């Protein structure tokens, strides 16, 4: 005799505290168990790829801020690299270093946010989020100091960066770097040894290693499965090949491993920053590129390791001032393709944890 209960369809989202925006997951429940799931996105679709075809290459940089609004610097960087690759522009040394510094600071800020919200999804009552926000706040202050904006930085330019750093930037960033390892120790002590967190996140949202490769996962999602794929190592851009750092990988590919990977990446980013900041060379931070740059006819695909994963830009030029086709390979969108595999058979509580461990940003999913 089996107890047959009626299927129970629940909309998790679009207005829901832990869907990180307007993401919607339709799930069929049997009791608390999810027997089918379907994702609905597009509530934040702004058609950036179409808009970009009407604007010049430089005008498109602010659009990239609005995609993954939690890591605007990396988004800028990827786009500028794609245009530079298309137009054959070489960025001066100081510009490269500034780009790396900003991108790594952004990675720390983004991972702080990701870890905080992930533990919030596990049910902590805002405390880890607030603790993580404290560090993110200092980094956003650094961004504000440099480019005047905290979230949508619009800092990178084709051929370099928009502004040189102000005088008070270097002392501030050095102070932060001295402070951060101690803080990260504190977080590890608070979070990693937490029995309830392990019980909640271990074995939840497990992705098999083969599926992780086959489903084009990138970033902490694929590294959590034990595959050390990181563009900074595999395809070093800017000046990443000059720094000594390691790629943290997990073992089982569950939510807890992804959390561990993000935690360890905080340390690795600090390590890179500690090498990059003292080595910051003098000289120009930017080459002169005409505002309405006209790359030659052709296409180019450039990619960076954004905090969410591989962020790629595919740009087709017809020789004019605007891109003919502008495509974004959005990591959090493609990472979502295993959502069904992660949540089916899990309970509602586990599905929220699994979703939180992907670290999606709806601005990037929907574009």
């Amino acid at each position, binding site marked *: 005799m089996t107890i047959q209960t009626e299927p*129970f369809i629940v909309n998790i989202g679009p207005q829901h505290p832990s869907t990180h925006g307007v993401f919607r997951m339709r799930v069929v429940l049997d009791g608390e168990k999810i027997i089918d799931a379907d994702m609905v996105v597009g509530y934040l679709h702004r058609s950036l790829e179409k808009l970009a075809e009407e604007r010049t290459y430089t005008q498109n940089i602010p659009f990239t801020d609005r995609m993954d609004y939690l890591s605007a610097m990396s988004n800028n960087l990827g786009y500028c690299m794609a245009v530079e690759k298309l137009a054959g522009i070489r960025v001066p040394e100081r510009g490269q270093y500034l780009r790396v510094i900003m991108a790594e600071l952004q990675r720390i800020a983004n991972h702080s946010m990701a870890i905080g919200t992930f533990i919030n*999804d596990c049910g902590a*009552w*805002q405390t880890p989020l607030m603790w993580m926000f404290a560090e993110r706040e200092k980094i956003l202050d650094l961004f504000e100091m440099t480019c005047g904006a905290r979230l949508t930085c619009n800092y990178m330019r084709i051929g370099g960066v928009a502004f040189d750093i102000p005088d008070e930037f270097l002392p501030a960033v050095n102070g932060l770097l001295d402070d951060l390892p101690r803080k990260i120790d504190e977080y590890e002590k608070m979070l990693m040894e937490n029995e309830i967190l392990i019980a909640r996140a271990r074995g939840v949202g497990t992705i098999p290693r083969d599926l992780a490769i086959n489903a084009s996962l990138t970033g902490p999602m694929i590294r959590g499965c034990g595959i*050390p794929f990181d563009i900074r190592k595999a395809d070093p851009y800017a000046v990443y090949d000059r720094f*000594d750092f390691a790629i943290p990988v997990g073992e089982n590919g569950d939510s807890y491993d992804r959390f561990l990977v993000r935690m360890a990446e905080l340390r690795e980013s600090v390590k890179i920053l500690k090498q990059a900041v003292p080595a910051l060379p003098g000289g120009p931070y930017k080459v002169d590129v005409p505002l309405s740059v006209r790359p030659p006819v052709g296409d180019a695909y450039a990619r960076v390791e954004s905090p969410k994963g591989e962020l790629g830009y595919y740009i087709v030029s017809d020789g004019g001032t605007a891109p003919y086709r502008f495509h974004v390979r959005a990591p959090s969108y493609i990472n979502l393709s295993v959502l069904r595999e992660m949540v089916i058979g899990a*309970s*509602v509580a586990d599905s929220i944890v699994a979703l939180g461990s992907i670290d999606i940003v709806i601005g990037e999913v929907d574009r």
Partner: protein
Amino acid sequence: MTALCGYVLSEWYDLRDLGNPVQALLDWINGWGDGSTFHWLAYVVAGLIGAAAIGLFLGIAMLSLIWIERKAVSRIQIRYGPNRTGPFGLLQPVADALKLMQKEALTPLAGDKYVFWLAPVVIFIPTLLVFGVLPFGPKMTAANINVAVLYIVAVGSATPLVIFMAGWSSNNKYSLLGAMRGIAMAISYEIPMVLSLLGVVLFTGHMDLNGIVQWQQKYHVWLIVLQPLAALTYFISASAELNRTPTDIAEAESEIVAGYHTEYSGMKFGLFYAVELGNALAVSGIWATLFFGGWWLFGLDRWIPAWLIFLGKMYILYGALILTRGTLPRLRIDQLLDFAWKFLLPLALVNVLVVAAEVTIWQENGISAGWVLPIAAVINIVLSGVLIVGYTQTFGFARRQRPRRARLVTDTLAAMPQ
């Protein structure tokens, strides 16, 4: 002058126990007529005074708790908390209440509007009833009934049904999920709770709370020393039903929005919020009474008013609830039920067994309490330590799954799967 001093210091004016003036008033009313004519009036007056006092206390306590909780949690979360309304944000609870009252109380169209309306009202009753039997002082119990321990459990057992009323009548799937979770959890945690209370009742031989406090006063010991296992199981299982963070699966904000009160707005939501705080205070009050000596504090209660001691203990123990709320993530429902059935229940059973043996040896052989109690305390403390550590090491999650760090790879290409 001496007469006035004597009058002021005489017992009925003694503010150390507010029960004295009330008793004097009742005696005065009883003295009217020929002794028993106005007995009913004294009865009515006593009931009214008790009810009014509890209502007043609960109102003030809830307002203060909102402020304390918000302020304490904000300090845990390294932020300031309310600081704009009045000095130190002290007027924040008033502002909260006013805001809630102004809001529109929506009723879902497809919901069951009578049950929907009734649920926040009914859920207040158990909270009020529990405070009715708490001894605030030697003579400050609104209703000193002699099965108070069982009564607390019985009254508390009505709460899951009200939660179900709220969740079902909302006609919302999140609400229904929350209600079902709430019921499943409440019926699981009731059993270890009753068993842990049984240990206390066995030891003291009393079922009324005042008697338990007086027992602790008589033997000059707090029961937490004699009953550490019972204190722990009671605290965990009672706080599990409070819907506070480590166990708030019935309203789990990150999963099912707000659980059973998703659809409530305005002051109806406010009632749920207030009841949550009130229940937490009641649990800390019961904890203080049963295991921390209630209004008795090693003789200090001769100088400090007993009710102040009790309130102090109650609020300090409430701090423990705030701490757990501010620091722990939520458990999943199956883990929570496992914990109740596989950890708390065996511990509580062992505790009852041990206590029964100790009490039998003590009572049957007529050994003096001065010998039995220290030995029993040592045995129970050691036993609880061994049991808890042994249990967690043998069956706990910690043994199987140690926390790790991520593995660091420098040569990525070599480590790639081929």
